[in-house]
């Protein structure tokens, strides 16, 4: 990702350079005059590096931007022999060198010939603000916006003039707004007049997010008179809106937690809810799904890195098939001997879950396996003052899609019809020519397969380790039972209810107590409705 961004930046800069290239010779000279400044980076500790970055930024020449970007990413090295600084990228055993100013290739170097120029957080911060001021005039509005955001965070009074120029030239409204906000932040941090600061407070007040709040609180606590009053009013206003948004955020978090619970529980709603098998190995089916995702990504990483963004889509059917096949195997090998003895399925599947955990541990090792997030599962976007992370959002959609798909299969396909027939009246179904053993095996396979695809989704937010399944099994049973055994809608509503309740309790009670309260709530709720949320009524209950 950062590679992509730096590439965009480089292209943007090249465009700037070309656009400004009316006097190429002079530019060339300018560029070369920067070289000593850049090579100076090879020497010195963090404190000195910080100064050197300041010097580079002070030139105001965008040509130094790629070098700074590389420094921030840890790609800037110097050659030990002559202390020349290069942008590097891995190439075989050594590094490919790029000239930091001309961006032309400068040959290769072995691992031991070059040395990295170290950076730490505070340096990265300095670089970010330096880059911000340097790229305010870039051609790509995206780069300009990012630059303005960086300047906003830096709150550097020296950037005000640059911002003024940039704002005057800016054609894109969105970018200009960000620039104005950045200017306001810088003004508040400067020793400009209170009048100007009051305007700045106004700008930030309408910005209305946490960043603005953070700045305004600073102003409120350090100023006097009108300015303080204005800041205080703005702070109050923002806090009020944020409090409202907090509720929306809690609901969102609750739905997100609920969707995770739903994914974890929905396979169990079939194997346990519909078939009555107390399936303690359910969690392991989820775990196997996650490991399938790991395997798929491993293959992709080694042989087709370009497909990485599609890895989850490839993993989904595979996880379904692998977990489903294992499920069918379990049903044929073990469960089918135990129908009519539901409690013994508990014993057998518990044994099975131990075996599966150990098998995965022996095969893949006990440590966490890395399952990466594709680009579209990473990061977040904002709705108003609410942060929505992509992975959570996709998981909510995915959980609902799985639920809908499953409903469709059970209600609209012959297989679903047979399944319902068999679970309701096995003998009758058999006498009508339905091959009940196959339906049993396939239903169990379906439940396990769905657990497998849940594993694909959970691999995106949790550890992929042999313990993955154990973390979800109890919650899954709670959800199915709370919703009402045998009712898929109950599972959906149950999962979402528990998720939202949990997330509303958490800010007040803390994560631990919140969870305890949810459990107590389940216990009490079952007293009120001994057969769950969506209980079957009437004579059917006795059947």
């Amino acid at each position, binding site marked *: 990702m950062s590679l992509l961004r730096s590439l965009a930046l480089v292209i943007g800069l090249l465009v700037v350079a070309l656009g400004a290239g009316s006097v190429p010779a002079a530019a060339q000279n300018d560029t070369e005059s920067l070289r000593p400044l850049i090579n100076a980076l090879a020497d010195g500790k963090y404190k000195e590096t910080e100064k050197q970055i300041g010097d580079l930024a002070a030139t105001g020449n965008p040509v130094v931007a790629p070098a700074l970007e590389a420094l921030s990413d840890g790609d800037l090295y110097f050659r030990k022999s002559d202390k020349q600084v290069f942008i590097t990228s891995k190439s075989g055993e050594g590094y490919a060198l790029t000239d930091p100013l001309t961006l032309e290739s400068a040959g290769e170097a072995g691992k031991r010939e070059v040395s990295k120029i170290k950076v730490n957080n505070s340096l990265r911060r300095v670089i970010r603000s330096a880059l911000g001021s340097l790229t305010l005039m870039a051609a790509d509005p995206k780069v300009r916006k990012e630059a303005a955001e960086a300047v906003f965070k830096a709150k550097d009074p020296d950037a005000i003039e640059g911002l003024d120029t940039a704002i005057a030239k800016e054609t894109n409204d969105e970018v200009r707004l960000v620039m104005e906000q950045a200017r306001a932040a810088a003004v508040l941090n400067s020793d400009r007049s209170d009048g100007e600061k009051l305007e700045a407070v106004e700008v930030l007040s309408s910005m209305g997010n946490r960043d603005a709040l953070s700045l305004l609180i600073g102003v409120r606590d350090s100023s006097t008179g009108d300015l303080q009053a204005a800041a205080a009013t703005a702070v109050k206003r923002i806090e009020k809106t944020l409090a409202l948004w907090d509720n929306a955020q809690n609901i969102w978090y609750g739905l997100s*937690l609920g969707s995770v619970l739903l994914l974890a529980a929905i396979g169990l709603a079939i194997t346990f809810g519909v078939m009555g098998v107390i399936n303690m190995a359910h969690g392991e089916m989820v775990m196997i799904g996650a490991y399938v995702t790991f395997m798929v990504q491993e293959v992709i990483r080694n042989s087709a890195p370009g497909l990485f963004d599609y890895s989850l889509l490839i993993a989904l059917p595979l996880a379904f098939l692998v977990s489903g096949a294992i499920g069918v195997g379990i049903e044929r090998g073990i469960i089918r001997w135990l129908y009519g003895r539901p409690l013994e399925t508990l014993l057998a599947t518990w044994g099975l879950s131990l075996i599966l955990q150990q098998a995965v541990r022996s095969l893949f090792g006990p440590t966490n396996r890395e399952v990466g997030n594709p680009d579209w599962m990473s990061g977040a976007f904002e709705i108003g003052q609410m942060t929505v992370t992509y992975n959570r959002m996709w998981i909510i959609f995915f959980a609902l899609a799985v639920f809908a798909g499953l409903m469709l299969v059970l209600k609209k396909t012959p297989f679903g019809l047979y399944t319902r027939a068999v679970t309701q009246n096995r003998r009758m179904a058999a006498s009508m020519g339905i091959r009940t053993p196959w339906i049993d095996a396939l239903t169990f396979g379906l439940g396990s397969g769905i657990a497998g695809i849940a594993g694909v989704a959970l691999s995106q937010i949790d550890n992929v380790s042999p313990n993955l399944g154990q973390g979800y099994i109890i919650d899954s049973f709670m959800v199915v039972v709370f919703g009402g055994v045998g009712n898929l809608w109950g599972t959906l509503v149950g999962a979402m209810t528990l998720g939202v309740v949990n997330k509303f309790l958490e800010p007040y009670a803390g994560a631990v107590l919140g969870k305890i309260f949810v459990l107590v709530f389940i216990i009490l709720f079952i007293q009120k409705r001994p057969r769950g949320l969506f209980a079957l009524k009437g004579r059917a209950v006795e059947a």
Partner: protein
Amino acid sequence: MKTKLTGLALAGLMASNMFSGAYAADDTIKVGILHSLSGTMAISETTLKDAMLMLIDEQNKKGGLLGKKLEAVVVDPASDWPLFAEKARELIEVDKVSAVFGCWTSVSRKSVLPVFEELNSILFYPVQYEGEESQRNVFYTGAAPNQQAIPAVDYLMENEGVERWVLAGTDYVYPRTTNKILEAYLKAKGVAEEDIMINYTPFGHSDWQTIVSDIKAFGSAGKKTAVVSTINGDANVPFYKELGNQGIKAEDIPVVAFSVGEEELAGLDTGPLVGHLAAWNYFESADTDANAQFIDTWHAFIKDDKRVTNDPMEAHYIGFNMWVKAVEKAGTTDPDAVIDALVGVSVPNLTGGYSAMMPNHHITKPVLIGEIQADGQFETVWETSGLVPGDAWSDYLEGSKDLISDWRAPLSCGNFNTATGKCGGSGS
């Protein structure tokens, strides 16, 4: 009746098993390895078992110890704390091991403590812990709070100008104590009560949305904010994933962790986490010959070039070498002799210096602060100029500020009260 027969057969089987250990060969020196290979802690502890096997293997290649081969006895306490005590007893009483290397969680150590005391054996404990303990039979090769937490906070204060602190941890004794110490320390440094937020989560917590957004909110009060994380192993991956996704950058709100090492990062895409920090006494990236050799040996032993090394492995490396040296010095594996011989032993560590065993059974270590890199390694950005001796009793806790520990004669006391001049805590 059959039941009777079953019962008798069972008893017989049991007895035969119990005794079998006693007849084992006597021409080896046995070393017990007490790390969970299954259950929740297997994820961290299995690596240490392998590291120990490697160290023992290497020592045997060098000709063993006192002319005998070393023999590893591996048991699986299965992340079940009472089972740790049972297995420790089995190792010492049945297998007659000379020393035990093991435990990870505080509770497992607490569980085996009385056993080691009763049967007078030796335990090497390789993990950073909360301190407040010094036992004659235990040697603490991991970091005490003053070797990890306090330097990390100092670093953040001085180099990053942090003024507002989130102390986030898993709700158990190590984070609780560490945070207590840090809270006292921060207040002593003039940090106001409202600038400290303390948050605890259950083990294996996986839904971090609320807490991360709380941290974000806490961080928007106009002061530079940092998170000090004592979140336990397993919960870290989802925590960091959430941090990355919610866009908390190290440049804005750095997170410094005490339980996140190379092993934990191996399960993560560290791209979005670059710049977050960890405080340890060893990083795999340490640029020394001893470390390069250690890593090569490890890769050869485990037959996987991608496996990382981490701080507790180094602690076992140091502890094992100390034990070897002490046994050679004492000329016997007799626990009393070895315990006495251990104090003062100094062996090279992997970061280019020497670590020595202190009279309080803690060791001297350098403290390193590292930043997470995109390749899953840490880059040392700061380190103590010298070695820091482990302090068993924190100076920042009321109950323990007067206590010291010195197991040398004549004091020979783990909780000597300097105020009252008596051994046995602060009360009597």
